[in-house]
């Protein structure tokens, strides 16, 4: 059981609508015929099954390129892929496992407006347990060892607007406070995307991506701002412990960045405890 660091900002009712924990690894020789035995491993807790197009293999690398985030390189398969991206969902649909030849992803999604956030530690425990079950299964199926090359964590927040104005997000998000406008201009809608590099001893090892844009809640039809933070990088080792260590690091950076980037009045509304 993982435990929460005491020095992290904590909210009673954070605006989180989705948390994603994922690892990427060298592609396993999985075929469609393996999907059945893999689903069997999880079918008690995740009975629902869907297929989706696989995600691309991505690397978080560091160079002097002006725009390192938008790689122009994408691997495409000519024919129908041998193995799709499986979606295994829990009965209530809030918990989801995604599996493809080179990825294992655990999602928690808010599926009901009243649903409480189960907390990172619980989602991580679920990810950890399910990943180990997946690794054991692929080993038993003779598909080889899972060698992780990338670890990532994403928090998706939905910040409900207290009025129906899409434009002025400065009361919610700090970084837009400094934007001064010429007379007669009022902000209409606000989107932003930026990234920051995490360093250890002056060496870059991971990147935090922040994206925000207007959206409408599918629960309440309330207008608001999506505020998404993703931390991704190469773990120290190829094992799950190293990947989880990078996720924990990313979680701290995401929570601290979220607290820095959002306003004190919203913190009060979300019940900031520390």
């Amino acid at each position, binding site marked *: 059981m993982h435990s929460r660091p005491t020095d992290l900002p904590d909210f009673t009712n954070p605006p989180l609508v989705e948390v994603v924990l994922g690892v990427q690894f060298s592609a396993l020789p999985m075929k469609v015929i393996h999907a059945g035995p893999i689903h069997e491993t999880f079918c008690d807790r995740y009975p629902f099954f869907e297929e989706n197009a696989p995600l691309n293999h991505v690397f978080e690398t560091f160079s002097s390129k002006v725009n390192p985030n938008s790689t122009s390189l994408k691997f495409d398969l000519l024919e129908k892929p041998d193995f799709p991206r499986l979606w295994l969902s829990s009965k209530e649909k809030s918990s989801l496992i995604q599996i493809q030849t080179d990825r294992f992803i655990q999602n928690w999604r808010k599926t009901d407006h009243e649903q409480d956030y189960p907390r990172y530690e619980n989602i991580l425990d679920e990810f950890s347990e399910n990943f180990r079950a997946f690794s054991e299964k692929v080993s038993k199926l003779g598909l080889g060892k899972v060698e992780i090359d*990338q670890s990532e964590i994403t928090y998706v927040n939905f910040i409900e607007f207290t009025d129906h104005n899409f434009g002025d997000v400065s009361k919610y998000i700090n970084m837009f406070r400094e934007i001064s406008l010429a007379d007669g201009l009022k902000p209409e809608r606000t989107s932003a995307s930026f990234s920051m590099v995490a360093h250890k001893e002056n060496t870059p090892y991971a990147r935090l991506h922040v994206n925000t844009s207007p959206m409408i809640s599918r629960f309440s039809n309330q207008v608001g701002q999506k505020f998404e933070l993703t931390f991704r990088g190469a773990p120290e080792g190829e094992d799950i412990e190293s990947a989880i260590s990078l996720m924990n690091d990313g979680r701290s950076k995401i929570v601290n960045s979220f607290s820095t980037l959002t306003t004190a009045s919203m913190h009060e509304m979300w019940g900031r405890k520390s």
Partner: protein
Amino acid sequence: MNAVPKTIFNNEHQDVSAKQNYENIFSLGSDRSPSCLRDAILKYNSLLKLPENWDGHCGKSISVGTFLFAMKMLEDICSDPQDVKPQLVPLSYGGIQLEFHSERGDLEIEIERQNRFNVYFEDARTQEECEFAGRNDFREIEALLRRL
């Protein structure tokens, strides 16, 4: 044997043009991709087809992940215009070596697998040599490449 996704290169469709070939296996932003990356994809995509024991000495095939990492490195370190074109050499344990040779010196990057590489550089004029290992930071490699 590692899984090699079925691409047009795995089939016997030899009648398609090279341009169609690489656009089917990789999508490249036409305005951003350095020419050395395009050339490498055209010239070396066959590395993905190497079977087990390709060298007669138990040589391992190259995984898609290792090949993609090599291509990502090329994309990051190469710039246009660039005179020194890379050569890609398969390694018997499943790695790839990128080699840049010019009259000014030699730069060799041994990619063991994703996030694991070793660099060797020699300056032909000063005889200066350097070696180091790395994971996902390519800035030092870029600086060495500019010296060739």
